[in-house]
């Protein structure tokens, strides 16, 4: 028996795969089990294979594995797609009325359970509930109290009325009973323990949206794009309750300009997009930086270039975020390393944007954005959220300067590079902001000295931030190991697990996971102390590895994956092993 269980439902897009998966994941998390979900989806709405996977354990889980224990196969293709992950104890639940088990190329020792999903669903009130029948069957196989499903079903169908909820509960019950009655001579080796813990289950996009509201963001503008749309969908209807508003813009050019306008008016504002949208925003990004407007721009990366593979994983936009745009543009780039960090780094992004009056890229990758994970609720403790608006000045401060025969200078050259900021409506603070090079008062200039002074001033913020902030990394593994693995973004979770595999092979590794891409922690000493240094990332060329090399003036090895599929722990361990050999 495994202490963690890997479950999946697969079928065609339009089969209700995602919502069924979510219902099961929530039932598990309510029953005090940790959950990690992953989605395999194609860029189409109907037809095409799609799957939702749930890994669950009483311990926290942070990655997918190459093993499937229970599979609900709504189509034959579901089995074909997952064939390598099935093992002799795997159980496949299918509907013989729809699919013949003999059609499955299933490994010999898997157990196929033919459950008349559709017929039982009809008995409960409608064929549409066949997935729920299957969930009931899963509960029986896994010895997981079916009552845990009930609450999930209430949450999912509650607003459709009592009757629908009851029908669904009945559908689940029929599924469970069928398995109990018909397969009572089959031994299942699964037994899902429940605990008293109460976990929350959310994905990276939701954590970013929640972080934005927590940070006082009240204005969001965006244009739909996978996999960033969830941020907008999360905020819609929620941010309003906090006096905020979401605008679905006509395109990304508009989205970033809308957010810029709101930010100049003094609101904490954000836009979120993915690769192609970031390209479109590049021109205004320069304006945001030059006008020193605090703005958070979220980029949920997916496979590029061009429209690439919109539903697949990649960390390919790092160069664009670090260097994109004409001219030279000071900016910060934050890259949360887990779902909960998506929340915390979003809050931090807003504070950094306002403290330094600078655009902040916040980047998640597709895997992290769509992956749901369980956490203790106090991981998102709202009482701990701190807001720092930086150097916002009021009328009194402005008039005090003016009495000293000085003027309000929105781009004053200061020692720390940050100028006082007057929000529109503040008496005496009137000024114009422009993307043209300007003097301290904001007036256009081509004066060579002023130009140099202003460029230096804007870059000085970066130095100040390096001094004042804690741009640290996260570390795990064996602190004294000779092998150093550096990663960013969602690879962290997979690396945690890969360490176990490496351990089995007696390979000691120290892992550094870097959430601050710019400004970033100095890795020189860490690199110099190690014999072997690998940078793991989901792109072809090693964009972060380039950055590390540039910083430490030393060549580092690379482990790259750019097929669009997440790193898996055992595979990553093997890649690391090979790279170290």
């Amino acid at each position, binding site marked *: 028996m495994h202490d963690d269980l890997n479950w999946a439902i697969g079928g065609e897009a339009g089969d209700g795969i995602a919502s069924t998966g979510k219902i099961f994941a929530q039932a598990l*998390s*309510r029953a005090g089990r940790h959950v990690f979900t992953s989605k395999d989806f194609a860029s189409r709405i109907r037809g095409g294979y799609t799957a939702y996977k749930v890994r669950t354990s009483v311990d926290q889980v942070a990655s997918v594995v190459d093993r499937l224990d229970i599979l609900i196969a709504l189509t034959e293709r579901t089995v074909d797609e997952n064939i390598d992950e099935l093992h002799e104890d795997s159980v496949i639940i299918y509907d013989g009325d729809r699919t013949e088990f003999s059609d499955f190329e299933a490994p010999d020792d898997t157990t196929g359970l033919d459950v008349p999903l559709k017929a039982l669903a009809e008995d409960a009130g409608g064929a549409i509930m066949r997935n729920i029948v299957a969930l009931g069957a899963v509960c029986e196989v896994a010895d997981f109290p079916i009552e845990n499903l009930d609450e999930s079903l209430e949450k999912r169908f509650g607003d459709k009325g009592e009757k629908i909820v009851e029908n669904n509960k009945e559908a689940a019950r029929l599924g469970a009973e069928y398995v109990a009655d018909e397969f009572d001579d089959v031994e299942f080796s699964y037994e899902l323990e429940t605990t008293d813990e*109460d976990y*929350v*289950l*959310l994905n990276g996009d939701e954590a970013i949206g*929640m972080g934005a*509201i*927590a940070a*006082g963001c*009240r*204005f969001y*503008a965006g244009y739909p794009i996978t996999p960033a749309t969830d941020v907008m969908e999360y905020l819609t209807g*929620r941010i309003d309750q*906090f006096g*905020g*508003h979401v*605008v679905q*813009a*006509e395109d990304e*050019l*508009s*989205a970033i*300009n*809308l*957010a*810029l*306008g*709101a*930010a*100049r*008016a*003094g*609101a*904490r*504002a954000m836009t979120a997009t993915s690769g192609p949208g970031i390209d479109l925003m590049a*021109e*205004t990004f320069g304006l945001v930086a030059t*006008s020193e407007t605090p703005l958070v721009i979220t980029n949920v990366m997916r496979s590029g270039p061009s429209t690439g593979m919109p539903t697949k994983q990649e960390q390919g936009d790092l160069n664009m975020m670090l260097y994109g745009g004409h001219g030279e543009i000071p900016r910060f780039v934050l890259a949360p390393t887990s779902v909960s960090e998506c929340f915390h780094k979003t809050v931090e992004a807003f504070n950094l944007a306002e403290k330094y009056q600078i655009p902040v890229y916040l980047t998640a990758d597709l895997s992290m954005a769509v992956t749901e994970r369980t956490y203790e*609720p106090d991981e998102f403790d*709202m*009482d701990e*959220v*701190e*807001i720092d*608006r930086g150097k916002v000045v009021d009328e009194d401060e402005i008039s005090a300067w003016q009495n000293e025969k000085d003027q309000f200078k929105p781009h004053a050259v200061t020692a720390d590079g940050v100028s006082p900021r007057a*929000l*529109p*409506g*503040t*008496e*005496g603070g*009137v*000024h*114009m*902001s*422009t*993307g*043209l090079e300007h003097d301290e008062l904001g*007036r256009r200039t081509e004066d060579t000295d002023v130009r140099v002074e202003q460029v230096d001033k804007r870059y000085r913020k970066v130095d100040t931030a390096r001094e004042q902030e804690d741009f640290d990394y996260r570390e795990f593994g064996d602190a004294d190991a000779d092998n150093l693995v550096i990663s960013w973004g969602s690879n962290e979770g997979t690396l945690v697990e890969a360490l176990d595999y490496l351990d089995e092979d007696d390979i000691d590794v120290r892992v550094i996971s870097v959430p601050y891409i710019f400004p970033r922690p100095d890795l020189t000493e860490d690199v110099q102390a190690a014999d072997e240094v690998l940078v793991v990332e989901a792109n072809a060329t090693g964009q972060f590895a380039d950055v590390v090399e540039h910083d430490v003036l030393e060549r580092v090895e690379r482990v790259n994956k750019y097929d669009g599929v997440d790193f898996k722990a055992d595979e990553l361990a093997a890649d690391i092993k090979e790279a170290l050999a």
Partner: protein
Amino acid sequence: MSSENVRFTDFKSDKQPTWCPGCGDFGTMNGMMKALAETGNSPDDTFVVAGIGCSGKIGTYMRSYALHGVHGRALPVGTGVKLANPDLEVMVAGGDGDGYSIGAGHFIHAVRRNVDVTYVVMDNRIYGLTKGQASPTSRPDFETSTTPEGPKQPPVNPLALAMAAGGSFIAQSFSSDAMRHTEIVKEAVEHDGFSLVNTFSPCVTFNDVDTYDYFRDSLVDLSEEDDYDRHDYDQAKDAILNADKEYMGVLYQDENSVPYHEAHGVTENMAEIPDGAPDGATDLVREFY
């Protein structure tokens, strides 16, 4: 600054315009400043967003909270400002290239949203700042450096675009008729919703066809037409679509216009936020149980 004491010169910055002597933009800007002062606004509570072009320099020469943005994107910025703080008076300005070419998409959507901003387009039917190429409002036979035989395509009719997008205030003015121009912009400022003022603002350097004389002779002032009712949609449609004449005045105004921020209940100043997470934020976490 209390708005009673505001004079129009308070909206003037200390920067001297670098427009060519005689450029129509001088008159356009003066009218805008007068309209703002006469409608009781002060620079402290006004936000002007400008595009790129000779026209866009207006942001530099006027004095208020302001942003001089990138080419064609002034309207989204103005929309963001207005929604974040509806207490601000928001004016957006740019040229015909800025508004009807590179920014045409935003124009339609700003009109359709009916955001409460006043959009003044300095229509000189040419690209001034880039030294005389055809603009979307140039005549088909207008010869320029990039269209030696004329653009050979019909010009954009901005009033018709605004009408098609559901515009609630559609007006046209002429920069050199200072009094009428100021009146029209004033009405635009006072209108609750998106107001378009397409202002003929001659380029004396590159356009020798759409000149002061041309507009003076050809423009028909609607305020002098007894039977014109600006609230009559069909009449406005005729005047805009079947125009064999060019009009000055308010062509159309929807009496029942509800501006975006009111329709969406976005009426608070979003600049004000608490020191920590807002009240009720913990409920957001609870949703994920």
